[in-house]
C-alpha cells in the first residue's frame, strides 16, 4: 500500500492588482483601507446613452506600457488586465523570467472569466456586418474566448504546467483560486491564478442591461448600497487581480514570503437570480470551506461579503452567515470594500481575496464605502477602517447565474515554523 502523501499547503506568495481604485497592489490597498470610492459616471465611448449610469472604470491603465504589441493585437482588454496583473503578481513573488524558464512545466495558469472579450468581439462583429466576413481578423477566434487570459499568460511567460479556465459565473473567481490550490496539492509547484474582466464596452454593457440586479441609479454615492434599506442593485466594474499560489514548503525553501494560505473552499449552485435559495447554498458553501480548512466558525476573524445590493439577496447573505457561523455570525466583522469600486464579476472575489490578505497583514479591516444604517443583523465595518488582529478570513461570492462560493484563508505568519 502506498503511504498517505503529506498534503501540500497552497500559499499565496504574490499579488497583482489592476482595479478601478489602483493599478498596483499598493495603490489598491491605500484607497481600499481609506474607504475611498471611485464609482463614477460611465465615460466609455459609445456607452453614454445607456441606462447604466455608474460603473467602476479602470482609468489609469496603459496596456502598451506593460504588454508587448504582438500580444496586445491578439487580445481583448480583459486579457490586457490579466497579463499586467500576472506580471505584478510574479514580480511580487520574486519569480522572474529566468526563474520560471528553468522549470517551465512546474508553472501553470488558472483564470476565471464571466464575460470574455466583449470589446474585441464587438469590433470584429462590426466588421462582419459592416464590411463582410473577409474583414474579420483571425484573432477573433481566440480573443473573445473565456480561456484567452489563461492561454496568453502561459504563452507570453513560457509556462508549460497545468493550465485551465473556470467559467462559473462571478463566483468563478474563487473557484479558480481553489482549483489552483488543488493543482498545488497534486504536485505543481506554482500557479498563476485569478480573474480580470472588462465588461464596460458598449456590447458588453447592453448584455448586462437585462439583469434585474443592475443598478441604474445615476448618483455615484447612491448607486451601490448593499445591506441598507436603500439597496438598489449593484454597480459593475472592470479589472481584477492575479495571485501567485505555490506549495508552501517550496516557497519557504526559495525564501519567498508566504503571505497567506488557501485552506478551504466549497461551491454550490442554487439557480439564476433565486436569491432566497442562495441562503442555503451560500451557507452550505461556507460549511464546506470551513470543513476543508479544519476551521471552527469562531476562528473566522473577518468576512468579505458578496454584498450584491439587492434587498432579497442581502437578506439571504446575512442569514447564510448566521446559519453557517451561528452566534459568531452576528459578532464577526463583515466588510464589502467593493462598494467603492463596483463588482468586476469574476474579478470581484479575487480583489476581495487580495484585500483580505492585505487586511490580515496590516491588522486593518477596510470599510464599506457609501453604506450606513445597516438593516441586517451584521457587524458591517462602515465609515473608517477598523483595527483588528486577524488570522483567518472568509471570502464570499455569488454569481448572477446562481453560483455560490466560499474561501477560507489564513495569514501566512500564522504557521511560519
Amino acid at each position, binding site marked *: 500500500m502506498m503511504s498517505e502523501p503529506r498534503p501540500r499547503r497552497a500559499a499565496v506568495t504574490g499579488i497583482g492588482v489592476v482595479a478601478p481604485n489602483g493599478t498596483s497592489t499598493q495603490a489598491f490597498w491605500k484607497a481600499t483601507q481609506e474607504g475611498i470610492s471611485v464609482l463614477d459616471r460611465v465615460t466609455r465611448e459609445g456607452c453614454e446613452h445607456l441606462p447604466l449610469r455608474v460603473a467602476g472604470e479602470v482609468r489609469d491603465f496603459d496596456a502598451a506600457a506593460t504588454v*508587448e*504589441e*504582438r*500580444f*496586445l*493585437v*491578439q487580445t481583448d482588454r480583459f486579457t490586457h488586465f490579466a497579463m499586467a496583473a500576472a506580471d505584478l503578481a510574479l514580480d511580487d513573488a520574486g519569480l522572474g523570467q529566468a526563474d520560471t524558464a528553468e522549470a517551465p512545466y512546474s508553472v501553470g495558469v488558472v483564470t476565471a472569466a464571466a464575460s470574455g472579450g466583449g470589446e474585441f468581439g464587438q469590433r470584429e462583429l462590426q466588421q462582419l456586418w459592416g464590411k463582410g466576413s*473577409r*474583414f474579420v*481578423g*483571425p*484573432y477573433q*477566434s*481566440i480573443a473573445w474566448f473565456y480561456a484567452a487570459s489563461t492561454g496568453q499568460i502561459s504563452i507570453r511567460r513560457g509556462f508549460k504546467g497545468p493550465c485551465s479556465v473556470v467559467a462559473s459565473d462571478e463566483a468563478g473567481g474563487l473557484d479558480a483560486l481553489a482549483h489552483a490550490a488543488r493543482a498545488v496539492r497534486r504536485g505543481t509547484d506554482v500557479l498563476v491564478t485569478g480573474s480580470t474582466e472588462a465588461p464596460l464596452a458598449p456590447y458588453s454593457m447592453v448584455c448586462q442591461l437585462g439583469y434585474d440586479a443592475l443598478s441604474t441609479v445615476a448618483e455615484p454615492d447612491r448607486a451601490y448600497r448593499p445591506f441598507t434599506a436603500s439597496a438598489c442593485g449593484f454597480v459593475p466594474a472592470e479589472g481584477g487581480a492575479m495571485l501567485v499560489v505555490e506549495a508552501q514548503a517550496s516557497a519557504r525553501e526559495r525564501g519567498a514570503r508566504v503571505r497567506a494560505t488557501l485552506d478551504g473552499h466549497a461551491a454550490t449552485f442554487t439557480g439564476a437570480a433565486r436569491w432566497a435559495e442562495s441562503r442555503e447554498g451560500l451557507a452550505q458553501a461556507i460549511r464546506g470551506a470551513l470543513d476543508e480548512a479544519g476551521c471552527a466558525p469562531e476562528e473566522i476573524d473577518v468576512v468579505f461579503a458578496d454584498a450584491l445590493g439587492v434587498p432579497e439577496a442581502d437578506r439571504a447573505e446575512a442569514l447564510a452567515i448566521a446559519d453557517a457561523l451561528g452566534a459568531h455570525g452576528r459578532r464577526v466583522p463583515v466588510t464589502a470594500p467593493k462598494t467603492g469600486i463596483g463588482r468586476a464579476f469574476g474579478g470581484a472575489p479575487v480583489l476581495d481575496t487580495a484585500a483580505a490578505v492585505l487586511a490580515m497583514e496590516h491588522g486593518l479591516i477596510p470599510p464599506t464605502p457609501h453604506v450606513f444604517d445597516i438593516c441586517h443583523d451584521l457587524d458591517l465595518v462602515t465609515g473608517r477602517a477598523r483595527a483588528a488582529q486577524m488570522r483567518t478570513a472568509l471570502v464570499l461570492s455569488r454569481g448572477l447565474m446562481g453560483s455560490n462560493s466560499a474561501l477560507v484563508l489564513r495569514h501566512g505568519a500564522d504557521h511560519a515554523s
Partner: protein
Amino acid sequence: MSDRITLDELAGLMKKAAGITVTPERLKEHADGEFGELGIDSLGMLGIVGELENRFGTPLDLDMEACRTPREFLDRVNSALPAGA
C-alpha cells in the same frame, strides 16, 4: 512590376495584422528564416493573407505549409496575384 508585394509592404502588414515590428532591413536579412522566429504565428499569417486578399479583391489560394519564410511567402503571393492586379 509595381503590383508585386515587397519586403517593405510585408513589414507593414506584419505590424498591422500581427503587431510585430520588423524593419524592412531586418526582414531582408531574415528572408530565409522562418516567420515563427519573428514572432508570427499561424493566425498572424492568416491575418496577413486576409489583408492582401481584401486589398486585391481576390482570394489567394496559397499553400501556407510552403510559405514558412518571407521569401517563400512573397514568391508565392506574387505568382498567385493576377497579372496587372
